[in-house]
């Protein structure tokens, strides 16, 4: 009799254990972690895939200045580099920090991972100082090119580097293209409004002023796109993927005057490499890779109207 009670008790314990286990799994399945105030708007049959490189933290960094002081790019080994406050570089995946011996204002990376720095007076590359005895490794900025006068900003294009300077005499912005073969910049165009973003290649330049984007090619300007709500903060271009923009709250792809703002979020930094676009969420320190982003080219077209909002998928 005692043995039977013992068996019953044993089975009950096992049953309760499995019940708890399944409930726990079920509860976990319901617990969905999403990134707040972030939306993906993609054509349903697109080839784009999402890969998380750094899981975003649960809490938000509530320091706008700190977020603004961060710059982001992807190096040649496809590792993220975050520049902080113009004095420090960090790789959040490998856990390495490097101090830069000279403050810089802008960090740009080309598609192949070459990282260049500018303090608006000179163009540099960074070389790690192996002889340093400090706890944190240090890098020295080595000068590549001295700008002829103080510039407004530098911009990376498709296998090309541009810089913009303000000409006070005719109150216009002059765009120069770097030619490293003979270490010189060639003035390519003059624009009479403030340039907020610029990209392009040796044949075509895209520049943004306010909400508008202009294309310059064959010596002529052509209106290219106007964002319906926000100023363009950044333009990114590669021949493989096309032209992308970033505003304060969105990242989109422009083609033939039409755009898809495929990611809406706050305080993001963006970098284009090959066929992937990398988005760094500065507020939550998360990093995502959207692969095969060139597929969006297929969907950039004019929308006549919304005909249906389906209840179920």
């Amino acid at each position, binding site marked *: 009799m005692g043995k039977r009670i013992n068996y019953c008790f044993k089975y009950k314990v096992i049953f309760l254990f499995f019940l708890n286990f399944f409930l726990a799994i079920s509860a976990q399945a319901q617990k969905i972690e999403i990134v*707040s105030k972030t939306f993906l708007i993609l054509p349903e049959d697109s080839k784009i895939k999402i890969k*998380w490189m750094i899981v975003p933290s*649960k809490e938000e960094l509530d320091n706008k200045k700190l977020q603004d002081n961060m710059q982001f790019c992807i190096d040649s080994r496809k590792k993220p580099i975050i520049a902080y406050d113009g004095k420090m570089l960090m790789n959040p995946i490998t856990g*390495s920090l490097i101090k830069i011996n000279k403050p810089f204002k802008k960090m740009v990376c080309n598609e192949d991972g070459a990282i260049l720095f500018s303090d608006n007076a000179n163009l540099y590359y960074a070389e790690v100082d192996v002889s340093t005895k400090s706890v944190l490794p240090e890098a020295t900025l080595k000068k590549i090119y001295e700008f002829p006068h103080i510039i407004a900003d530098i911009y990376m294009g498709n296998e090309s580097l541009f810089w913009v300077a303000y000409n006070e005499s005719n109150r216009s912005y002059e765009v120069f293209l770097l030619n490293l073969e003979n270490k010189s910049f060639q003035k390519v165009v*003059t624009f009479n409004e403030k340039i907020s973003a610029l990209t392009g290649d040796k044949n075509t330049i895209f520049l943004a002023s306010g909400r*508008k984007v202009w294309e310059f090619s064959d010596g002529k*300007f052509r209106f290219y796109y106007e964002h319906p709500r926000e100023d363009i903060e950044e333009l990114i271009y590669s021949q493989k993927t096309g032209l992308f923009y970033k505003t304060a*709250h969105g990242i989109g792809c422009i083609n033939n005057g039409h755009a898809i703002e495929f990611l809406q979020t706050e305080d993001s930094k963006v970098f284009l490499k090959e066929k992937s676009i990398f988005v760094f969420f500065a507020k939550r320190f998360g990093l995502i890779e959207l692969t095969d982003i060139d597929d969006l080219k297929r969907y950039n077209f*004019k929308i006549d*109207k919304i005909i249906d909002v389906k209840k179920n998928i």
Partner: protein
Amino acid sequence: MKKSLFFLSILFFLCTNNAFSFCMRDPFTGNVICPPEPPTPTPSIDRSLSPRETAPAPRSSGSSSRVSSGLSTSQQMQLMMIQGVLQPLLNSLFQPTFPNTYQGPSPEELKRMKEEQLKKEAQERLELLHRWQLVRQKSTNSVKDKNKNISSLLAVDVMPVPENKPLEIPSGTPFFNDATSVFGNLVMDKSIEKIEDIGKDVIDKLGEKYNKEWGSKLYEKGLPILKITATAATEGREAAGVETINFAVSLLSKPMSSLQMGVADLGRKIYAKVVFGALDYFLQETEKAGNILGFAFSKDKFMEDFENSLNTPQRIFYKWAKE
């Protein structure tokens, strides 16, 4: 005392009468220094003297003195004896108190040493030059490679320069009705602004925005998603014949594997763990090594110093990452 006075008086006599002079060896150079010789008297034959006696007094080499020929042989003999006795004494009197026994290298040796020194210096200079050239070459090659790399990466042809005057921007820009304008700014939408992490409610709010009665369900990956079908203009469309397209509006979810769930729950500590993990481990190991080898190293003290060395924004960032 008496003895000394006696010697000194004799010395005075000899000097005042120019009875003899003496030479000295320079203690520094080792050269023999003699006072200038008095004019040699013209030899004259004294007939009263024997031929042996007329012979001039033998001149001793080195430090020996010359004797005046006006003295008699016996006087000369006496003087020579006195000189023989006095010479060592006088030499000792006129030598420095602590004579330098080391006479120093000879000029030939000095010359040879100097030549060797010069040769050595030249050799060292050559080696330094060679080393510097190697380093310079290496450095130059490295910079060249880098520049070449950057150059090849950024190589561009110079674009034809357009006219310098700013080009006129056409006015009356068209407004394109594209997906960006259709969907609006979901992030900034006031109706969803305060909703965080509740996907269903957000989607419901989106439904309200479009004035449609529609629901949401959990997508296979656990995401509430909204699908919108839009009619599309065919111009610029590669897939010919397709006139509608489905847009999926989805909230972005975090990866949900069990490991990633655990990591995600750590929130911002993940970053601190990743970034400062290596440093923390290094400091722990250093502390251990210090205990074993007997030197004091405090990880806490080090971190305190490290934090103090950061400027305000760095400290904010560090604290944010570390907490």
